């Protein structure tokens, strides 16, 4: 492991993102085991999941700096996929009742 790599600004950013990712994962598991949070478990976990998703996409996959075309392609794919998952789950009565 070279020293120049450690001091490189982007390297520091990547490590910081990875630390946040690891912390979020630990937090997710902690939340899972805390009985008191059971009623709000689902929203908390989904928010943390989305945060991790966004961190990887924006920083590791450079979407933040890579321009609108790639963002659009990924966003459309992810959006339509999510919409269909949600629609199917709704049809099968997976939300509420």
């Amino acid at each position, binding site marked *: *492991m070279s020293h120049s790599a450690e001091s490189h600004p982007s390297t520091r950013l*990547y490590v910081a993102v990875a630390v946040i990712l690891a912390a979020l994962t630990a937090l997710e598991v902690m939340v899972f085991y805390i009985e008191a949070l059971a009623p709000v*478990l689902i929203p908390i976990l989904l928010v943390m999941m989305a945060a991790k998703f966004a961190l990887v996409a924006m920083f590791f*996959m450079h979407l933040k700096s890579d321009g609108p*075309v790639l963002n659009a392609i990924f966003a459309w*794919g992810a959006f339509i996929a999510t919409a269909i*998952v949600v629609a199917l789950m709704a049809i099968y009565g997976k939300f509420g009742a």
Partner: protein
Amino acid sequence: MEGPTSTGIPNRKLAMWTFIGSECMLFGTLIATYMIYRGRNLVPPYPHDLLNIPFITVTTFVLLMSSLMMVLALAAVQRNDLRATKLWLGLTALFGLIFLGGQYYEFSHFVHEGLPLSRNLFSSTFFVLTGTHGAHVAGGVIWLSTLLVRTVQGKLDARHAETVEIAGLYWHFVDIVWIILFTLIYLLV
């Protein structure tokens, strides 16, 4: 090779992103099926009998960290630091292998506990969903290994950073999918 492109994005990189957009639908459908069939098992074992969350947390962590290794490999090859490139590429592939090992252990444990593929709805949806993800990880490991070999052979350097970047995009996407699966399958039981 290829000239300037209309969007300024190299063809192969655009293709990888396009492929990733399409993969969203593939995993989306698998996830939808898993979610719809959750709780509809008629015969045991049930998910909460088997899912080992501490264990999966460890392999999840390994896969997350492999993503860090991957960006570090890209950063290294971009500044033509081939020694670091080899190190980070190798570690990424190794972490991927560890994750696969964990999955192999988990699968064989499930089968041993009486949950083969065709046992019930949980087994069918679980194995196909996580198995598809695992196959993607395995493909990634093979891809990264060829990049590593080519770096060792001296055939891959800063001029081929785009190749590493594209492999990295794939790898991170596979990681993102796992972020979702980890939450949906293991934590939202």
